[in-house]
């Protein structure tokens, strides 16, 4: 499609930027968010911080799931930022049925919701469970693995901001190496989080051979929506792991959330891929590859790696090796000759 055939006129300041994308799409290809008919599952007025990646990711994920479910959707929420900032009662941002029980049991509660709906003759109502990385990879890990193993009919969405943000930025098993958190301070011989530990939940989810696993990023919202739509085509356990920068916890500018998320993808540190029944079926190729420095420098949680005159090149190189390994493992390199 060109500017002339686009369904909507493009203004001069939109050319050459990513924001033009939606306007070049025909109606069917546009994002759910671009539609006036979007459900606003999480509506405005919530208390998330400026630039919150989780609020953005949840909004896109839930509205896409709502469209796929024909409006018949319920959400179960683990304790965490998303739960707290959306329900300062009597206000609630949720325009869909929403249930919060505990920090570590969202997958099991969702299992119960799905089973209860079947038994009450409402199998058409779909169930989403969601939590942050702490609720998913740490305290909710047992319940999530159980849900996967039983292949319960739930889409679980993890909003990964790489630490316990709701309690004040403590390390989780999703915190990357070298990152400074309140419990991995930038002190001593090896400042920040240690290397060689932690979990990458999407791979663990794949090991359960569930129908669908995907990673997504708030820098690639069209892709995120498409993955949610794909996930909703399956019955059984599905898992989407969304990379959501946290300006407060990462020490980044509020307006840099999307840029940081994009650099995480373009550096190779956060691979975008889809897997079905345990096998990777597609991965997002990196169009403009960047060194990890560009991603790390925008975040104060990595500031100790870039002290003036004392840059920690060894650590940065180790992080670069992680990115390179991802690119090789998930085939993120753009094929030769592609533009």
């Amino acid at each position: 499609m060109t500017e002339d055939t686009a369904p909507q006129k493009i203004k001069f300041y939109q050319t050459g930027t990513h924001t033009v994308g939606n306007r070049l799409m025909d109606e069917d290809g546009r994002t759910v968010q671009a539609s006036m008919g979007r459900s606003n599952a999480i509506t405005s007025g919530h208390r998330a911080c400026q630039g919150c990646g989780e609020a953005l990711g949840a909004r896109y994920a839930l509205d896409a799931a709502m469209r796929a479910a024909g409006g018949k959707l319920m959400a179960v929420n683990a304790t965490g930022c998303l739960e707290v900032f959306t329900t300062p009662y009597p206000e609630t941002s949720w325009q869909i049925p929403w249930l919060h029980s505990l920090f570590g049991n969202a997958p099991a509660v969702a299992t119960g919701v799905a089973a209860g709906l079947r038994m009450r003759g409402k199998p058409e109502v779909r169930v989403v469970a969601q939590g942050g990385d702490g609720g998913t990879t740490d305290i909710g890990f047992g319940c999530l693995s159980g849900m996967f193993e039983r292949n319960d009919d739930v889409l679980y969405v993890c909003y990964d901001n790489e630490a316990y943000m709701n309690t004040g930025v403590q390390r989780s098993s999703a915190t990357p190496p070298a990152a400074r958190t309140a419990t991995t301070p930038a002190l001593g011989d090896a400042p920040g989080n240690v290397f060689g530990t932690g979990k990458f939940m999407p791979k663990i989810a794949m090991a359960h051979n569930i129908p669908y696993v995907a990673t997504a990023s708030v820098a690639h919202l069209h892709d995120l929506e498409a993955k949610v739509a794909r996930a909703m085509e399956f019955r059984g356990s599905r898992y989407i792991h969304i990379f959501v920068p946290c300006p407060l916890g990462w020490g980044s500018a509020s307006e840099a959330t999307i840029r940081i998320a994009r650099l995480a993808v373009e550096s190779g540190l956060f691979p975008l891929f889809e897997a079905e029944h345990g096998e990777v079926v597609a991965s997002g190729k990196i169009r403009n590859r960047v060194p990890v420095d560009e991603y790390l420098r925008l975040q104060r949680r990595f500031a100790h790696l870039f002290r003036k005159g004392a840059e920690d090149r060894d650590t940065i190189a180790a992080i670069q090796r992680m990115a390179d390994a991802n690119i090789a493992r998930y085939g993120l390199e753009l094929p030769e000759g592609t533009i």
Partner: protein
Amino acid sequence: MLRQIEGSQGIAEAVALCRPQVVCAYPITPQTHIVEGVGALVKSGDLENCEFINVESEFAALSVAIGASAVGARSYTATASQGLLFMAEAVYNAAGLGLPIVMTVGNRAIGAPINIWNDHSDSMALKDAGWIQLYAETNQEAADLHIQAFRLAEELSCPVMVCVDGFILTHAYERLDIPTQAEVDAYLPPFDPVQQLDTDNPYSIGAMVGPEAFTEVRYLAHQKQIDALEVIPRIAAEFEASFGRVAGGLLRPYRCEDAETIVVALGSVNGTIKDVVDAERAEGARIGSVTIGAFRPFPLAELHDVLAGAKRIICVEKALAPGLGGILASNVRMALRGEAQPVLTVIAGLGGRPITRASLADVFRRAEREALDDVTFLDLNREVVGAQIARAAGTRGSGPIAENLLRALNPGLVHRVPPNEDAKQ
């Protein structure tokens, strides 16, 4: 129909007659036979429109029940001991959300030291989680209480824990009368939830509540229990009218008229206590007993009416509050506030130790002679305890207590010299 069956099987069949829609199961002794029984009824097709979900922990078991109950499905699970503690957070949560889940607790001790046998440490640890707690005296009552429990839970929108003595009841084969489906259907109406997740009427459940309303939420949870004081006897009376036998209720006095000594207890030990009461009465003693059917809500006024005329109260209880003494006795004292008679505690049956008629008769007689301590440990082996106290006083590295006691009790089975004995040589 009368049949000779295991207590757990009776409970499983009674639960199935209540038409639960979601049953979640995780094995833990001694309740496992119950969920096995329900699972078999689902798998065979005898229990229709029910999902039986094998979960990965007790925490998940109750969490699944929470989710199912929140969409208006009748939900059930069973647990015991460590399992009840492992799900403790969800136990409070289910009550806080006001979800009418029914759960059996096959009462068992809590470790360490690990112990699979019966006492009430588990359900006592969660007595104040906001659940209604009913205690069964017999296997027949255990089965019957489950039928009442679903009605009670759903009428009040409050979860109900049916406490059944592990092994003593769960594994005992007795003649049970399991009612027909038609009888249960006539007694227990379909679940009509006061709240449920519904796409046609979406609302949020489980929001954060701050200081501005938390007290009020808790007050209403208390009020719900107070309301249960009226509901429990009513549905027990209706049960008696429908099924022709007594089960449940707040409490059941036994030969308390003119009694100077009244024994208060929970659960199956009341059978033994009544035997002792009969024997002591035959010897001329003025003694009676009270079976507490509902521990939460605690029937303060009803208990006061029964106990106030007695000279002394003895609480025989299968749990211990270390550093305090009796838990049941503390509650009974609350019922007798303003009264002068002593409320004595007999800690009995911990970790499955048999509670014999001889030992009970002995403590009751000591109480009548005013020679019973405020807190008594029934059949305590003072020799073994004394040796351990001396050992601990004699050396810093005295080693693990439980293992020391077992060695002292089985001197012929010691195969190696304990490390600190070795060091002395």
